[in-house]
């Protein structure tokens, strides 16, 4: 598997380069963002002297490249910081300390990440089941009423803004029908059952839209496979249509679906802002929007890097899965 090893190495190097570039861009962009960080951190009624003290504390007066260099050093070697009463160590890879809450960015991410992952991975299961199921069904029943109905539903899901779906679900299911409690995040480790119940609606609203994409992709991919020669072979040998669709066409159609999936999971972690905001899930997206609001640079950089990492990772994973699924693809 030296080919695979080489692939991993190339991707790893590429990932690091990409992430560093992203961090530079984020640093520069947010450096230029208006808003006096020290004043925001200190509070609006702080005197100029206090603001100055805070700026020193946060090293805001250093030039941009010095701050970025310190960020890199912290990333590689970790850094020490004072809580006032003692010295704490932030071990590598240290993404720094939040200006606002003085917490280690890494630990903030680690508390937010499970929420986002719970949301996205759970929704993923749902959108795969719904999307692939719908896609298969509509490919099999092509031209019939079932397909038209499914097509209409898929398009409706596709065209509805996520916040509208989420809001309507919440009003109807929790408010009017009172079938479910209003969602509030419960740790999986605390109570798996509550975790699932509380995430059901967020999962649904995220999954409905994604499922539409998957249904389209699966159907398209299925029809493409169904048009391939080997399907004709099995027809010419009297194999039943059900077996052909379920066994041969589906297997062939999975590769692009897997690729799309890995890809979407990556971007969904960063993109679940709307869902997280709407349902009050304390995830990465919500935290990031907030951090941008208060120009909390270390948090923004850290979170964007984590999201970027997942996107890049998911892309690499998509390629591996695609190659595994297809076998005819060569990894480069």
């Amino acid at each position: 598997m030296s080919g695979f090893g080489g692939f991993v190495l190339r991707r790893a190097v590429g990932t690091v380069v990409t992430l560093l570039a992203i961090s530079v861009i984020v640093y520069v962009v947010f450096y230029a963002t208006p808003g006096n960080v020290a004043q925001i951190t200190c509070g609006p009624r702080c005197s100029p002297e206090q603001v100055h003290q805070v700026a020193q504390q946060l090293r805001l007066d250093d030039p941009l490249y010095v701050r970025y260099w310190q960020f890199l050093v912290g990333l590689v070697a970790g850094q020490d910081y004072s809580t006032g009463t003692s010295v704490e160590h932030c071990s590598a890879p240290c993404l720094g300390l939040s200006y606002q809450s003085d917490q280690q960015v890494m630990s903030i991410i680690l508390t937010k990440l499970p929420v986002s992952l719970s949301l996205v991975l759970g929704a993923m299961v749902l959108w795969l089941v719904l999307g692939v199921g719908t896609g298969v069904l509509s490919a099999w029943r092509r031209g019939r009423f079932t397909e038209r109905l499914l097509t209409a539903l898929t398009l409706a899901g596709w065209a509805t803004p996520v916040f509208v779906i989420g809001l309507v679900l919440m009003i109807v299911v929790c408010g009017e029908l009172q079938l479910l409690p209003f969602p509030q995040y419960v740790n999986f480790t605390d109570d798996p059952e509550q975790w699932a119940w509380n995430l059901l609606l967020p999962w649904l609203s995220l999954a409905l839209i994604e499922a539409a994409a998957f249904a389209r992709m699966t159907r398209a991919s299925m029809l493409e496979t169904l048009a391939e020669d080997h399907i004709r072979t099995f027809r010419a040998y009297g194999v039943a249509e059900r077996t052909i669709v379920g066994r041969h066409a589906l297997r062939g159609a999975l590769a692009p679906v897997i690729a799309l999936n890995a890809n979407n999971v990556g971007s969904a972690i960063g993109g679940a802002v709307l869902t997280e905001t709407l349902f009050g899930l304390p995830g990465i997206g919500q935290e990031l929007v907030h951090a941008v609001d208060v120009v909390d640079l270390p948090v923004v950089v850290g979170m964007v890097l984590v999201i970027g990492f997942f996107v890049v990772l998911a892309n690499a994973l998509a390629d591996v899965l695609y190659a595994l699924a297809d076998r005819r693809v060569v990894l480069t």
Partner: protein
Amino acid sequence: MRQPSATARRVAAASVGLVLAAGVAACGPEDNDAKGSGGDSTPHKGGTLTVLNSDPQQDFDPARLYTSGGGNVPSLVFRTLTTRNRENGAAGAKVVPDLATDTGRPNKDATEWTYTLKKGLKYEDGTAITSADIKYGIERSFAPELSGGAPYLRDWLVGAADYQGPYKDKKGLSAIETPDSRTIVFHLNKPEGEFPYLATQTQTTPVPKAKDTGTKYEEHPVSSGPYKVVQNENDGEHLVLERNTYWSASVDDERKAYPDKIDVRSGLDSSVINQRLSASQGADATAVTTDTNLGPAELAKVSGDKKLAARVGTGHFGYTNYIAFNPTVKPFDDPKVREAVSYAIDRSSVINAAGGSALADSATTFLPNQKSFGYTPYDLFPAGATGNAAKAKELLKEAGYPKGLTVTLTHSNSKDFETSPEIATAIQDALKKAGITVKLQGLEDNDYRDKIHNVKTEPGFFLAHWGADWPSGGPFLAPIFDGRQIVKDGSNFNNGLLNDKSVNAEIDAINKLTDLDAAAKRWGALDKKIGEQALTVPLFHPVYKRLVGQDIKNVVISDWTGVLDISQVAVK
């Protein structure tokens, strides 16, 4: 948003310290008694109170909090030297003793204040609370590591301006003396009759030095109040408070502490909070919110439902939304132009944009319409409900603009219904009738605050608001109109850049008074006097409406906070 978040800062910018501070207001007692859906409205101990909030209690450190009257959730854990009176309406705008035996004993010129602690005060670990701990708590609040909080201690205490807190400066603050473990004495720069109000803020919470963990203290602050923190997840997002067994009602006259447990959930969307409170399902039946008002849309729905309407508490908080002029920018250097705008303003459409007559009271005075502020009604440039375009045109003509003029109104882009585009657009629409063409300049919130609080970049015509750090005219008028508080190289709130000797002198004179009622009257008179200069156009005072769960009892809303007091709520 977390406490130091944009929203919080935004409001804090107006010096309201709302998030933390905010309690809910109560309006009349009639509202409250009507509550208690069941037949038995007497509150009992026990049960779990759920708090649904949008902003996490991120800074749970008494040094960092910017509260009015000690805050709501924080005041369950932090006791202070004095505190607000936990009563409905105007009675709630009074200062009362908390840890101290009285509201403070001043020397003759009110430059020295002495407090004596009650006997038998204990922390959650059973150790005794001493005056040295209070002194240490105040000293910590000067540490740059623990930034936040109001500026008064730094401004008022002798030699405190350059103090950097106990971590860097081991000698401590000499302005505070603790002759014995129950006595604490404050030495001030100048006479401050309102020191008892300041003593309500969480900076006067005792912090045991041995337990201080610096910036990590907020993870588990040591309780002096009726509840202690047993769980603090995700930096204040989920808090669980349980009874502090060392607290005793016998040494705390204010907090009722009915529920056994308080479960604070935050990070929720405001519409979700209100939806949950109105549905009142399961645990939400015993839920309240300490930071989310009913919006206009929700009010429209609630007001059509009698059962729901009975669960709405109404409160007033000392707060004014206004238009600010910078008289150094043309054409606003001409008082006639400022007066023309004052005449032309259509308050009804502004109030509609702010949520309608149920959520905003029309304002013609800068001071809030409450007695404790010294409210003296006046309407110097009567515009009626919808504006006096004719009078405005006349004034413009006098000022040399017979064909009207074009001006730029600066506002924030955040969606707060205070300085937001909705209000600005309403003003734009109203001034059109008087021949004033308004161009809108919407700025991102950080940018907006940077610009309007910087003397060098302050626009000529913009939306602003101001709220009370405590219910008195002092912190309401001084930062805005005291010429000596103009900050040239930092955050400036005297937007009109007013530096009038007679105004300054009057402020100093009132500050000397320790008779707060007498002081209030003179604040009211001063307000009217300043109003003549037309440096602001008062627009409205917000009204707070909040829902509570259907099983919530004993809702108390004071005029101090305008929102329900969580220490009084019962769930049984």
